[in-house]
C-alpha cells in the first residue's frame, strides 16, 4: 500500500483552495474556495457567516462556541499575515462525539488582511 508519489500531482489547478465546514454525526456542509485569488480575512469571516445560514438553527446554535473559535483563528491569521497550506484546524463542540467546525487551507494561502493585487 506504500504508494509511490506522483511528483506531478498537485502542481496544477487553482492557486488557492480550501473550505470551511460544519460536520458531525448527521451533518456535512461546507463553504469552499478555489481560485487564483486567496480569500481575505473578512471574506473568511463571511464564509463562516454563510455556513451558519446553510445549516439548521439547532446545528448552528450547538456550534456557537466552535464558530467563535474559528473566527478567532481567522483574526489571528490576519494579524500574522495570513495562513499557508497545508493546514487543518478543527474547532470541537465539547461533550459531543464528532460535532465540529473545520477550517482547511489545502493549497496556497488564505486570510491576509487585503486581497491579492
Amino acid at each position: 500500500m506504500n504508494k509511490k508519489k506522483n511528483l506531478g500531482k498537485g502542481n496544477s489547478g487553482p492557486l488557492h483552495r480550501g473550505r470551511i465546514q460544519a460536520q458531525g454525526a448527521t451533518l456535512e456542509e461546507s463553504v469552499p474556495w478555489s481560485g487564483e485569488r486567496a480569500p481575505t480575512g473578512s471574506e473568511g469571516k463571511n464564509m463562516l457567516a454563510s455556513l451558519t445560514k446553510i445549516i439548521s438553527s439547532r446545528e448552528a446554535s450547538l456550534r456557537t462556541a466552535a464558530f467563535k473559535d474559528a473566527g478567532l483563528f481567522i483574526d489571528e491569521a490576519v494579524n500574522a499575515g495570513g495562513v499557508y497550506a497545508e493546514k487543518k484546524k478543527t474547532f470541537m463542540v465539547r461533550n459531543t462525539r464528532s460535532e465540529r467546525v473545520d477550517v482547511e487551507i489545502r493549497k496556497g494561502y488564505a486570510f491576509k488582511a487585503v486581497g491579492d493585487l
Partner: protein
Amino acid sequence: MINEFDESIVLLYDKFTVNQFWQNKIHELYSDREKGEEYEREILELCPSLNRVLEEHNFELKDKHRLFNLRLWDSNDANPIYYGFVPKSYRAIRIIQRAPVDKTNQLSAWVEKCHLDFKEISMFDASDAYELVIYIEINDLTFRYAMLLIYFWISRRGVRRVHEEHLIKAVYDTKIRGEHSLD
C-alpha cells in the same frame, strides 16, 4: 477522575514535549504486544462483531516500521498537537488536545479523508489516505480509550473506516458519554 499524568502533559505547558509524548506512545504500540492483546480483549468486549476483523487480519506493525511525526502539528495552539502517518497501514492520526476545562471526560473521535498532499513525505502519496481524528482533554480514562482507538486504527490494513467508527461509537456511548453530553 484521578490523573496519573505529568501536569505538563495534561496542561500542555511545553507543546513540543507533548508532541513527543504522543509520538512515543503511539510507536510503543508497534512492539508492546502485551498491551496490544489487552486492547484487543477490550475491543471484543466493546464490539464482539469486530472479532472477524481481528481474527482474519494479523497485527502488522513491527518496531522497525516507520511512524512519521508530520510537521503539520501546531506548537502554538495544539490544534493539532500531533499529526502522524503510518506507511505500513496507510493511515494517519490527527490529535487535537486541550487542557481540561472541567472534570468531565472529553474524548471525541471520527474518521475522515486526509485531503492533504503531505508534501513533507516525499516518498509516499498519502493524499488518498484516511485519518483518525481525536479531540482529547487528557485524564486516565480518555487517554486509555484514545490509545485503544489508535491501536485498532493502525494495527491492520483490514480495519476499515466502518469498523473504526463502530468502535468509536461503542467507546463513546459506554465509556465517555455522560449527563453533560449534548448528543
